[in-house]
């Protein structure tokens, strides 16, 4: 017996931490996403029903695994009986196929089969993030099967109707089955590209939870926490992949500022205005250690570079202490790997901070001439800010006006309105 704890709390925590692992193992054994998920959910329900009266078992994780396996066998037997009746109706082919593919006698009676292989969750991550699935399906599937988030929770986080999200999950699982998406860790020659895809999904989940846009704040926080948790799982399973370490470091180094980046009314507080005393130091330290471990492997990548930039911001005791020169250099390195205008805009801002607004404006004007970011509000807001600092008020006002036209976010509009009034009166 464990020390007397509230069984509900134990089940809740166990669900978050263990359901992904148990689902992953059962999918391998059963070869069926839905059956595995349903069986695991039933096992947790049984735990909620029985643990309060009978006590929490010594090894709750193993108990859940065994119970889920038994539930799966029950379900398969029921399906088999259904199949016998259906045969009379002449529909044997479809159902026989289903039962034959997941024969309970053949595959799960042996106890050893459900002993979790560390690889199971890794297989599941790569299957859920397969490039043949649409990106929104990858995100939903990862959160649902590995994160144990419920369909309504994910729907609320991404502001889509529950029905839409449920359909997205059904379609994704059907494609995995019907298109023959394999349930395995990709071979070495595919690994760099496929791992990159997994990291992108996790980073997207993190950003969705970190971004200042709209949505239920509690659920959003949950997304970031979940992305970090899955990032830790990935680092545990692939300790020699510097970009996996880099992603975890990047998420921790950003998440450390979470408390300081919203004000009392939920408004966004810019990095330079944040109370740095409210930054989470242990998180920063952990992030930096992970980043150093990654950098020692000498295979630099975009996640590590972005983590290094975040670390430089976290290192500065005041905004004035920020090493902008170094940050501009890191953005230049990032641009060589990911030559996107957004990266170039970030570099321009860092250059302006390091060398003065004039140098930054030259780069920003080149981006404006390129035209690719014309509808991107931050381009015009950044340009407006540089013009303002150079005292070119009327040009600054025009750029602020353009940024305002493109921004829907209330907090950002308030900020831009204030700046516009300032340059218009000055």
């Amino acid at each position: 017996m464990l020390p007397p704890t509230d069984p509900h709390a134990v089940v809740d925590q166990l669900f978050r931490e263990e359901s992904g692992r148990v689902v992953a193992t059962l999918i391998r054994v059963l070869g069926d996403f839905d059956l595995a998920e349903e069986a695991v959910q039933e096992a947790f329900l049984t735990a909620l029903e029985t643990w309060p009266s009978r006590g929490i078992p010594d090894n709750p994780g193993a108990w859940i695994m065994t119970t889920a396996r038994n539930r799966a066998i029950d379900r398969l037997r029921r399906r088999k009986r259904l199949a016998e009746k259906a045969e009379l109706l002449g529909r044997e082919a479809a159902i026989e196929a289903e039962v034959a593919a997941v024969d309970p006698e053949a595959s799960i009676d042996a106890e050893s089969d459900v002993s979790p292989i560390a690889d199971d969750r890794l297989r599941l991550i790569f299957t859920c993030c397969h490039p043949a699935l649409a990106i929104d399906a990858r995100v939903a599937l990862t959160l649902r099967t590995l994160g144990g988030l419920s369909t309504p929770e994910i729907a609320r986080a991404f502001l889509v109707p529950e029905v839409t999200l449920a359909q997205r999950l059904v379609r994704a699982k059907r494609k995995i089955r019907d298109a023959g998406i394999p349930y395995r860790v990709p071979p070495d020659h595919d690994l760099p590209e496929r791992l990159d895809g997994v990291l992108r999904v996790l980073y997207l989940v993190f950003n969705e939870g970190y971004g200042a846009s709209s949505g239920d704040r509690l659920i959003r926080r949950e997304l970031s926490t979940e992305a970090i948790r899955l990032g830790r799982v990935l680092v545990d399973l692939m300790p020699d992949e510097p970009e996996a370490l880099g992603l975890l470091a990047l998420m921790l180094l950003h998440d450390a500022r979470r408390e300081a980046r919203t004000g009392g009314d939920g408004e966004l507080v810019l990095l330079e205005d944040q109370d740095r005393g409210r930054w989470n130091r242990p998180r920063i330290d952990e992030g930096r250690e992970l980043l150093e471990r990654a950098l020692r492997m000498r295979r630099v990548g975009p996640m590590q570079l972005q983590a290094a930039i975040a670390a430089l911001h976290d290192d500065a005791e005041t905004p004035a202490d920020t090493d902008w020169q170094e940050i501009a250099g890191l953005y230049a390195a990032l641009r060589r790997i990911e030559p996107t205008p957004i990266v170039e805009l970030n570099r321009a801002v860092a250059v302006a901070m390091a060398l003065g607004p004039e140098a930054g404006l030259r780069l920003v004007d080149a981006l404006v001439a390129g035209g690719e970011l014309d509808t991107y509000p931050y381009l015009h807001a950044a340009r407006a800010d540089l013009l303002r600092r150079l005292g070119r008020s009327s040009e600054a006002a025009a750029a602020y006006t353009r940024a305002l036209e493109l921004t829907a976010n209330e907090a950002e509009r308030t900020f831009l309105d204030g700046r516009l009034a300032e340059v218009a009166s000055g």
Partner: protein
Amino acid sequence: MRYLLLIYTQEQLEPTGDAAGAEFAAYGAFTNEVRDRGIYQAGEALRPTTTATTVRVRDGQTVTTDGPFAETKEALGGFYMVDATDLDDAIQLAAKIPGAKHGSIEIRPIFEYGAAEGSSSEAVGAAG
């Protein structure tokens, strides 16, 4: 698992002269590769869409028109049918088809009726 690999290319951009010869040889090499692996089931090149005829039956009337239904940039130019291990295997094969370099390959799993006994595939992914 059987997959149809549909080769879509822009007919105007088809290689000519020496390049056409090189592409023909590359297709030959690809065909030999899938034959050697024992996964080749079928493969053909199609004559261009200028030779195509479209048939529809509406209200019991057969309507025949010249050419493909819609003016599309990329047209179906040929196909392979292979018995690949799984989608990853099929993706790798598709990437080796010469037309992938200037056109695109659509991978479609074959609908196997009575999949349980018919398919030679390994049970991967969510079999069911």
